[in-house]
């Protein structure tokens, strides 16, 4: 499972970092984001690229788990 911590990065960097990890061929990803916008954008990107997406809220950030 590859972990990407993009908390504090604004749009579109979380999506770009996710995209790079998807292109590397990672089947399982864990992405930490801290805004609703990033949560939506990253989730949408993963779903459109064939990942099942699960989001957990922890304190003031979200953990997005994407699995193929």
């Amino acid at each position, binding site marked *: 499972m590859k972990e990407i911590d993009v908390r504090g990065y604004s749009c579109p*960097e979380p999506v770009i970092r996710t995209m790079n990890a998807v292109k590397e061929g990672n089947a399982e990803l864990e992405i930490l984001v*801290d*805004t*609703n916008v990033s949560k939506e954008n990253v989730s949408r990107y993963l779903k459109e690229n064939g990942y099942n997406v699960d989001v957990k809220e922890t304190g*003031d950030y979200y953990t997005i788990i994407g699995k193929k």
Partner: protein
Amino acid sequence: MKNEKLKMLLGGGIIGLLAVFLVKQGNPGNMGICVACFWRDIAGALGLHRAAAVQYIRPEIIGFVFGAFASSMFSKDFKARGGSSPLIRFLLGVFMAIGALVFLGCPLRMILRLANGDLNALIGTLGFVVGIMVGLYFLKNGYTLGRNKKELQIVGYIMPLFAVMLLVFLVLKLEFILFSEEGPGSMHAPILISLVAGIITGILLQRTRVCSAGAFRDLFLIKDMHFMYGIIGIFIAALIGNLTFGGSFKLGFEGQPVAHSEHIWNFLGMTLVGFAGILLGGCPIRQTILAGDGDADAGITIFGLLIGAAIAHNFGLAASPKGAPLNGRIAVIIGLILCTIIAYIYTNKRAEG
């Protein structure tokens, strides 16, 4: 996903219709909504520049911030944050305003101009897309302005309070506030209509997260049409509005309201806006919305826009229907060079660290 698409088209559609309606109610031609022009008018009203024709506190802007603030509070999107290269963002905001005022409009007005048959805006759109592609090159290679950090809640209230202050200045017409007696600044819809239209637009933009730079960026970068549907909604609705109740549709380059036909400067002005918009993570309207939902970096970008607009008129950079003045052309070139330097430095910084 069908619902998402419809939501974006509808959200954009309402904004497009409101923009046509605001022109009918008295706003300048194709200027139902123009974030760069409106901040420019506010800069003039506050006395930051002395171009007598463009001074008015635009209630639409106040509405955008109020709408975004209320909507983000309600949806729990509101989060006070900041500290990601603020001075660089300020500078990019300054040049984003200058580029927009050489073209005569922000990307949103560009779409609205296009929807009213102004083909100069087509040239602007091409330039905008080129600016976005150049910005994307750096983004793909690791460009970043760095992480923001959580701020105290009070920081997120500064921009909404700034908007309250503007509303007070507008309603009380305080003696130090300047209002145009002729020219575009004197043309405006009634305050209440502008304010309510602005609030509705602010809420819609906050909920849909529509951003003109983001729409093209996602289309090219991740082949995602999501935000583009919002832009298409704005365009189609404004087009229908202009052809029907607006009654103002006119196809061509010449004689378009508040526009000029110097193609190269329409193109390069919007290249600068697109490039700076990508480096900032959002176009002027998106920055205004983010400033309302607690993003202090967007707030500082807005102050950059405000000062950029003041500079554009104080130094004779802003275009007029006669065309783009020499100083404006030089400023656009400087802006493009500066954006390239910033993009280069902040791409390599990450590669090293």
